[in-house]
Structure formats: structure tokens, C-alpha cells
């Protein structure tokens, strides 16, 4: 049987002439799922869009052929390509919220494609929509389409986008990180539904993701990409179990590393931070409900939970950015003011914050040297040569060359920016660093390096970390103790080893079992187990 999608020697160039994708060959058989794996900037999304004859943000396809079921996209004119898009090949983006028009009902947006391409009449399209909504297990499929995008949850909207993409019964569906923006517990549902949908309608798919474990559950074949070039390609089993290239081996090892490695940290001192009975509200909505915990010197306390669980809010309450309405935060035996504005300079110095998005955490108009040097001058009155020396020492400590001091953040990569953020926190010589999802925006291998850096800094400087994250793999390797939160409340807390060992708290168990594992049969096993549990 012939391929539904054949790409030969694809080259895509950025507006400045750099090649984002350099000579990629790709085949997709009917009903086959090809996983495209790689770090950000590897060119995987660019390939996904190029498969539809599309280049985003001024990028142009400068070479190669793209053939969908016998029709050449590159030779055809604009009208040919438009006829293909949506009808023969459809696209599912990472952010469903950005893909739906907020002012039009979901159902109308689902049938739009089929009607536009004249594939079905209104009645057929509505019937097909209902079938899709049922297949995707959306609540009340008969009336679901009457809702507006803001009236449904993120996971539901993501499924609705899949329905929208399927509206013309395309041969190929391009899935661009479709579950990355979702919580793990939601991700598993969407992943399972996606897989059954693809199988049921024998749709071919390009599945783009940075998460090997996710792609392991759904792809027949995997292509690993780096810097716009193919690293290796093979069946899912071969790539996961016997990777041929070093880069792939690193990716696989990193993902497996998440599942092992307990923490041993003997040098834990007296209580540094104590939170007792803290409540906080956004308007009238409670976001923190009776939170009590403590953190000792040299210890790492991880706060885990899904989005909306209040874990970042807790960090902001401790930092004094969100005034609490009841309860108390004490630091080193002294009670802290509720708002940072009323805290002493010395108190501010001893608690430092590192954020999730290093891009907006660094002033783009200050050099790295100015950014790191400022806390030294502000807190310790350091000037000129001693300050420069200290900046150089810190750059060395975080593993960046000393000439980076004169660079602007715009010239740094994501991981380098995050290192600078850490250096800025260290410059204040803090006792406690609050790390708010510090690795979430980074590629796996880069995140790995940042975690190692944090770990070694702790051993060297005796720092305490309050580690906010949704990534349980990170927690297991880094945290001495863990606090699990759900809807503003503490579900449980204790030593990390105990939390992640049976007997589990039911919510913790759901979280733990929802984290994709590299095993090919992981999804089936988990689903089967859950079915048993509910039966």
C-alpha cells in the first residue's frame, strides 16, 4: 500500500536564511503513527507545518518535495494547498485555548471545516461531530457543542480540538505537543482517547513531542531530531530499547533517570522556615486553605500538585507577594510580615526566588554582570573590582564563562538564562531559595543540568530549597521531603521516600501512576488497572 505522506529532502529556512530543517526524508503509511522527538529548536514543529505546505512566521520551504496521497504540495498552487489543509491533513496545536475562536460555539467550529471543504452537508457534519464527541468521551456529547470555549476545561477543549481536526476525516493528523500543556492526570485521558481515535478511523499521524515516554505509548515509529537534522529513525521498540546514536541514548537515559535515585542528605539542621495555618484568597476564592509545613536548614521541600492546586500561590505567600489572610510565616525563628513591602532588607535578602520563565526574569536591557552584581552592591555595598571578582566567581560556580558578564540576556539560551537567575539569587547569599517550576520551561537535558547544579550548590553552600514543581521525577531525585497539594489544601506531607512508596494516598497514587513511563505497555497497564479499580 502506498504512503499517505512522503517527504523528500525537505529544507525550511528562517527569514534570516538559517536552515531550520535541513534535508529531512519522511514516510507515513496509512494508519501509522510517527513520533517526532527532539528538544526545542530541533525543527519538529516546523516539519509538522511544512507537511501542510505551510511555513510560520516568515519561514519558507526552500527545497524538497511533499507528497500527500499522490498530490504534490510544492508543485501545486496556493489553492491546491488550501484544498488539502483541513481536508486531507489536519493540525492539532499545543494550546487549544489559542486555537478556538472564543466568540463562536465549539460545535460550530468543529463542523466548520467539513462544511467549508464541501465534504458533508450540515446534517452529515452534525452527525459526524456527535460521533466524534462520543468517541472522545466528552460529557453530554449532544449539547457539548453549544458551549463556548471558556466554558469547558483545558482537557475537554484539547479533545474538542482533536474533533475539529477530524471533522473532514483527514488521512493525516499532525499532533503538535497535544498533551504538553495539560496536567499529568488529564494527559493520560487525552492520550488514551487520541490513540483509540487514531486506531478506530485508521488515521495516520505525525506526533510531535519532547517527551519520549509519551511518544512510546502511541507511535509505531520514532524519528529523533536535532538542529533541523535527523539523528535516527526506527521502530518505537528499536529507538527506545536499542538506540543507535549517542544523543538518543542520552534522551532515553534522562527519561529513565527520572524513575530512580533516592536522596540522601545528612546535613539537615534546625527549622528555618515555618508556615502555620496559612489561609489566602484571590478575591473571595480561597486559594490556600490551612497550610502548615516547615523546612529545615539544608533541606529540600518539594511542593507538588496539578495546576490550580495552589503550589505557586504558597510560594508567593511565603515571599510576601500574596498577603495571607490568616496564619503565620516564620523565618529563622522570627515572624515575617505578610507583605514583602514591610519586611526588613535583611529578611528579603535571605529568601530568594527563581522563576519558571527565565526569559522574563532577566531585564533584557541589563548585562549579565549588572544583573548578578546588583544584589552584591545592594545588600553588601560591593563596588568595582571586588564586585567584578565576585561576579566572575559566581559565573564560574554556575558553569558559565566569565566573558558572559558583558552579554545581554537576549544572547543567552534558555538554560543559560536560568543559570544567571540562579546566580542572581546566590549573589544575595540567601538561606532559602524558592524554586518555582524552574525546569518546566527547559528541554529535558538542559533541565537535568540545572537540577544537578542546584544539587551541588546545596551541598556546597548548605542552601535550603522550597521546590515547587509538577514533575514528580524531579521531586524524587531532589527532595528530602514532599508536600502534596490539591485545590489549595495539603493532601499529605512527609519524607519523599514514604510519599512515593505504597501505601499511597489515593490522590498521590493518581499523580504517580499518571506520569508516563518509557515502557511501551505503560498506558495499557495503567488503564487496565484503573478499570479494575472502578469495576
Amino acid at each position, binding site marked *: 500500500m502506498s504512503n499517505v505522506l512522503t517527504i523528500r529532502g525537505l529544507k525550511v529556512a528562517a527569514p534570516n536564511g538559517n536552515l531550520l530543517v535541513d534535508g529531512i526524508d519522511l514516510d507515513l503509511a496509512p494508519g501509522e503513527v510517527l513520533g517526532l522527538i527532539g528538544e526545542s529548536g530541533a525543527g519538529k514543529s516546523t516539519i509538522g507545518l511544512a507537511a501542510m505546505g505551510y511555513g510560520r512566521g516568515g519561514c519558507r520551504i526552500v527545497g524538497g518535495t511533499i507528497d500527500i496521497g499522490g498530490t504534490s504540495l510544492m508543485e501545486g498552487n496556493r489553492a491546491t494547498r488550501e484544498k488539502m489543509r483541513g481536508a486531507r491533513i489536519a493540525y492539532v496545536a499545543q494550546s487549544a485555548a489559542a486555537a478556538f475562536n472564543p466568540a463562536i460555539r465549539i460545535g460550530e467550529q468543529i463542523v466548520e471545516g467539513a462544511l467549508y471543504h464541501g465534504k458533508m452537508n450540515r446534517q452529515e457534519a452534525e452527525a459526524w461531530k456527535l460521533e466524534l464527541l462520543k468517541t472522545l468521551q466528552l460529557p453530554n456529547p449532544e449539547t457539548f457543542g453549544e458551549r463556548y470555549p471558556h466554558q469547558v476545561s483545558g482537557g475537554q477543549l484539547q479533545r474538542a480540538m482533536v474533533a475539529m481536526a477530524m471533522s473532514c476525516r483527514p488521512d493525516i493528523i499532525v499532533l503538535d505537543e497535544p498533551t504538553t500543556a495539560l496536567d499529568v492526570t488529564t494527559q493520560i485521558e487525552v492520550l488514551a482517547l487520541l490513540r483509540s481515535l487514531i486506531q478506530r478511523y485508521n488515521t495516520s499521524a505525525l506526533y510531535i513531542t519532547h517527551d519520549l515516554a509519551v511518544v512510546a505509548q502511541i507511535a509505531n515509529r520514532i524519528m529523533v531530531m536535532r538542529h533541523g537534522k535527523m539523528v535516527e529513525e526506527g521502530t518505537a521498540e528499536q529507538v527506545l530499547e536499542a538506540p543507535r546514536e549517542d544523543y538518543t541514548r542520552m534522551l532515553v537515559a534522562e527519561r529513565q533517570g527520572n524513575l530512580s535515585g533516592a536522596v540522601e542528605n545528612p546535613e539537615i539542621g534546625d527549622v528555618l522556615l515555618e508556615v502555620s495555618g496559612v489561609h489566602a484568597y484571590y478575591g473571595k476564592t480561597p486559594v490556600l486553605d490551612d497550610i502548615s509545613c516547615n523546612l529545615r536548614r539544608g533541606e529540600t521541600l518539594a511542593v507538588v500538585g496539578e495546576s490550580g492546586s495552589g503550589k505557586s500561590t504558597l510560594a508567593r505567600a511565603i*515571599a*510576601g*507577594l500574596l498577603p495571607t489572610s490568616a496564619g503565620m510565616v516564620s523565618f529563622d525563628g522570627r515572624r515575617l510580615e505578610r507583605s*514583602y513591602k514591610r*519586611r526588613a*532588607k535583611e529578611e*528579603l*535578602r535571605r529568601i530568594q*526566588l527563581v*522563576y519558571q*520563565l527565565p*526569559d*522574563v*526574569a*532577566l*531585564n*533584557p*536591557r*541589563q548585562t549579565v554582570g549588572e544583573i548578578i552584581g*546588583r*544584589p552584591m552592591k*545592594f*545588600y553588601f555595598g560591593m563596588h568595582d573590582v571586588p564586585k567584578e571578582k565576585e561576579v566572575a566567581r559566581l559565573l564560574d560556580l554556575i558553569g558559565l564563562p566569565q566573558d558572559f558578564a558583558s552579554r*545581554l*540576556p*537576549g544572547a543567552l539560551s534558555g538554560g543559560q538564562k536560568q543559570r544567571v537567575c540562579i546566580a*542572581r539569587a546566590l549573589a*544575595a547569599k540567601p538561606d532559602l531559595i524558592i524554586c518555582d517550576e524552574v525546569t518546566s520551561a527547559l528541554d529535558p537535558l538542559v533541565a537535568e543540568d540545572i537540577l544537578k547544579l542546584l544539587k551541588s550548590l546545596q551541598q556546597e553552600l548548605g542552601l535550603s530549597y522550597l521546590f515547587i514543581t509538577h514533575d514528580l521525577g524531579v521531586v524524587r531525585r531532589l527532595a528530602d521531603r514532599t508536600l502534596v497539594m490539591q485545590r489549595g489544601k495539603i493532601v499529605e506531607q512527609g519524607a519523599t521516600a514514604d510519599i512515593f512508596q505504597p501505601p499511597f494516598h489515593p490522590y498521590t497514587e493518581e499523580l504517580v501512576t499518571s506520569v508516563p513511563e518509557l515502557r511501551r505497555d505503560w498506558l495499557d497497564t495503567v488503564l487496565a488497572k484503573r478499570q479494575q479499580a472502578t469495576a
Partner: protein
Amino acid sequence: MTGKLKAIPISAWLGLTIVALNLLVFVFGPMLAPYGMNEIVGAPFDPPSANFWFGLDQNGRDMFSRLLAGAQMSIGVSLAASLISFSIGIPLGFVAALFGGWVDTVLSRVVDTVMCIPVLISALVVLQALGSSVPVLIFTIALLDSTRVFRLARVVAQGISVLEYAETARLRGESMGWLITREILPNALPPLIAEFGMRFCFTFLFVAGLSFLGLGIQPPFADWGGMVKDNQQAILYGLYAPLFPAAAIALLTIGVNLVVDWLLNSGNAVQGADR
């Protein structure tokens, strides 16, 4: 450097040339003028000739000389008014954004109240009451314009102050002065510079408009808006005397706008690269 120069589009070169030309005239205009500003050299509305390139005005004065001399007044008033309006609007806008609360409420409501009244009417009232002199003219326009600068500065500063780097500075315990000058201002500059060009053009047209109504720059000083007004009856006789000052106004406006467009685009490009 040559690479950077090459990156400047033709439209921006055109704008830069026009602006540079106007600046030259602004500085050296009176010295370059072949005749005196108020020197009567012939009959009213004499057409252009080899001696008088742009012809003569309604009093028989040399139009070209008056254009060169008037540049100082017209451009000077607009530039001064724009500079003052930005010096008032930016600090107040930043303070309103960073303090928030009642400071923001009071400042914003005062600005809203001023903005409710059409600018031309406010200006007419003030100028009528205080009498039109150059300083009064400059300050009236500057105050009225500063409300718009305030609004822009406030919203830009609000956007920046919620970013993590500004939050980090606040959490460090930095003073308001540091926040404004080091964290907010450098990052707010691209939109503010663009706005400066726009406001300068509007001010220029506004001064011209006021002069046209007789409340702008008073005779015998030459200014471009006033020259359009004084020569308007020439249109009735099919003469194009007022078109010369009108063209000068139009040319400068277009030139500044071309430069602003370019700054706006390159400003965005810089921001884009940083994020």
C-alpha cells in the same frame, strides 16, 4: 556598521533626510534667508521668480525667507512642547503604574477629566484667558499633550512591572527611583520614542491650527501655520502662495512619520530578539 546602515529601509532614509533638512533650517534658517523676515521687497502675491523662489506674501515679503525664518518658531515651539509634555507625562505615568491604589486613581481621574474636554477648546480657553505668548503657548500644549503621554507611559509601565525581573527588583527591596530608571524606563523606551515622534507631529499641526485661528504665534514673527492663514485669500485669486508653507508642514510631518515608523519597527524587532 555598514551592515546596520544597509538595514535601514529607503522610506526611513527619506524620512531622515527630510528631518535632517528641517533641523538644518531650524538652526541656520535665519542666516540662510536672502531677505529679512519683515522686509517688504515687492508687490503682494508676486509670483515665484529667480529672485524670489517661492514668490511674495500678502504684504510683499519674500516667502522663502519667511519660511526659513519661521522654521525656528514653528519647530521650536513643537519640540519644546513635546519635550515638556514627555517630561511631565512619563514620570507621572510610571508613578501611577508602580504605586497603584489611590495615587493611580487620583492621577488617572484628573487626566480623564482633562481629556474629556476637546483639546482645541481647552487650548482656546487658556490662550484667550492668559493671552497668547510663546511660553504660554508651549506650556498649554505641553500640559494638554502630557495627558496622552501619561496614559501610554502608565500602561507600558504596568505591563513591565508585572514581569518577573521587575518583581525580583521589588522583592530585593529596591527603591522607586531604581525601579523607574533601571527596570521600567529602558524597556519602555521603544514605544515611548515612537510616541514622541507622533506627538511632535500632532503638536506641529496643532500649533499650525492655532496660528490659523489667530491664537498661535503672533505677528510679526513668522511661523508656518500663521503663514498659511495670512495668505489664505490668495487662493481666491488662483495664486499658490499659501501652498508653500502648507507644503513645508506636510513635508516635515511625513518625514517625522517615516522615521517613527522605522523606529517603531526596529524597536519591536529589538524587543522580539530579547524575549
